[in-house]
């Protein structure tokens, strides 16, 4: 990775591009800088937003001068350097009903906007990534866990990046023209990212399935919304668990009854250990979920 590229967003923002391309290294560096910046509690800094391979800071130049703001970020970059970074975080299992009827129906309504009008989104994504069947694709997609690498676009919408070697990354283009509709809680996929649509709305990502678990709720009804109205934060690790129609229906009933819950477990992620043995490291991460 080369040096970070800094740019002012007029008088109230600094944008820092760690790298042009997505990688775990770029994501980790951005997270580390944002965490250090948060820790310093600098007066005038109002927003610290890590995002994939970059980060964004909003500040009040009447409180901290633009030059001082820039110098502070560069100083933090130098302090962190290329040190091996460990990320203390948490892991959660999220149920997904892949290849479900609702996102398939929505996909059918917008077929003329898709690269391949004769396939469903999941068939297309599986095929162009060289999988022999949808089941093989689901096994890969739900096998290794994913990092929440950014939260945004709209309230509580997480972007996720799979914790596998570059050669195993799944990739897919976005729709040729965006849809005007996407069901709430759709598991979308575009570029190399999953996006979980926290609210219903427009979207251009391939639709792979749907989760029964609400991830954004201003009314904070379920137990896991106790502390905040959005579930995910950058740095969280998510393992997708394929579920059947029966399991999906059961979960939806539990959501409606207010008894549905998600379990988060603390975990420490070491990039160095991951690189030594990516497959084994992923498996060990997931084992944390099941109490091994």
């Amino acid at each position, binding site marked *: 990775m080369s040096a970070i590229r800094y740019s002012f*967003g*007029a*008088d109230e923002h600094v944008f820092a591009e760690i790298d042009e391309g*997505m990688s775990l290294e770029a994501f980790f560096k951005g997270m580390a800088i944002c965490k250090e910046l948060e820790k310093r509690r600098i007066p005038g800094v109002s927003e610290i*937003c890590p*995002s994939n391979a970059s980060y964004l800071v909003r500040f009040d130049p009447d409180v901290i001068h633009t030059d001082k703001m820039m110098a502070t970020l560069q100083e933090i970059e130098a302090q962190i350097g290329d040190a091996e970074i460990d990320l203390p975080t948490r892991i959660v299992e999220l149920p997904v009903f892949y290849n479900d009827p609702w996102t398939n129906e929505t996909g059918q309504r917008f077929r003329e906007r898709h690269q391949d009008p004769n396939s469903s989104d999941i068939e297309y994504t599986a095929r162009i990534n060289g999988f022999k069947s949808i089941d093989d694709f689901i096994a890969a997609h739900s096998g290794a866990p994913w990092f929440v690498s950014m939260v945004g676009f709209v309230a*509580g919408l997480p972007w996720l990046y799979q914790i596998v070697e570059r050669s195993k990354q799944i990739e897919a283009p976005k729709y040729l023209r965006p849809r005007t509709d996407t069901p709430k809680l759709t598991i979308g996929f575009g570029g*190399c990212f999953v996006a979980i649509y926290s609210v219903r*709305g427009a979207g251009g990502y391939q639709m792979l399935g749907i989760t029964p678990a609400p991830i954004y709720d201003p009314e904070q009804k379920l137990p896991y919304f106790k502390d905040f109205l959005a579930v995910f934060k950058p740095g969280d690790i998510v393992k997708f668990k394929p579920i059947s129609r029966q399991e999906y229906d059961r979960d939806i009933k539990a959501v409606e009854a207010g008894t549905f819950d998600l379990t988060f477990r603390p975990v420490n992620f070491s990039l160095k250990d991951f690189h030594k043995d990516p497959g084994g490291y992923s498996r060990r991460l997931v084992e944390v979920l099941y109490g091994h």
Partner: protein
Amino acid sequence: MAIEVIKPGLATTVQDVGRPGYYNVGIPLSGALDQYALRVANLLVGNDEGAAVLEASLLAPELVFRAPAIIAITGAEATPKINGEARPRNESFAVKADDRLTFDFMRSGARSYVAVAGGVDVPVVLGSRSTYGLGALGGFSGRKVAAGDVLPVGQPRPGARAGRALAGDLAPSYPKSLELRVVTGLYFHRLTDEAARTFFEDTWTVAPEADRIGYRYRKGRPLSFRERKQPFGAGSDPSNIVDAGYPYGSIQVPGGLEPIILHRDAVSGGGYAMIGTVISADMDRVAQMQPNNLARFVAVDMAAALKARAEYKAREARLRALLSA
């Protein structure tokens, strides 16, 4: 005291100074798009300058006051009327129980503000009463107001009185054609030399898609991005980047066609290259542009952006001195 909504207008929401601190989870700043007009409205009725008001967009609402109150109307040039009789803008006045507020059409400007002494008293959510519609958060039930809604009003301050007015040069006007100052940067280098020039040469027209999320402009020449092998994880279009955070006021050009300035209900991030950012001092002026108004973008450096900001702040200070007396 309460305000009853008879007709909601096009998009009328409760707004205040906004909700900073949650952009990292996709919850934008929100708050009045024209922050200056918000402060004027509140100071005229003796409120804290950041109290919650009603923001009307393009087509103003019809409201009935259920009890006597002191109110003030600021923002777009649209004559307010009480029971059909014209009232001044930028001046506080008294209304009686059952008085009906209507508006003429907006001759210039796109946002009107209705402040009432005591402020609109909806619940505070994450530190603000502002409405964030996409997230169904804050404001009145997380949405724009609808016919039949009854909006609670807080306790007026002792200083609230009728007849407080804005002095001439502190009252803004809203020209139909203006210059917006932009600091280039972010992914400006991705534009071709020609696009980097024509963006500033052309006159752009506000599109009908101009709302609290963003302002879309059209009728300038299309902007091309430099061809390259797209980086891993960015989309296939040359206007795509690896999804990143969007500054408020940043300008993106999906597909190189129509520039969009993100405003206070911004989508917080995405995969379109941003080519620069409108300076903070010009964001109120963006908010008051109507569809079909004209804009030219003017490149300025940071020193000019900070100077414009200082002038904006000085004007705010004069406003406070005048209206707090």
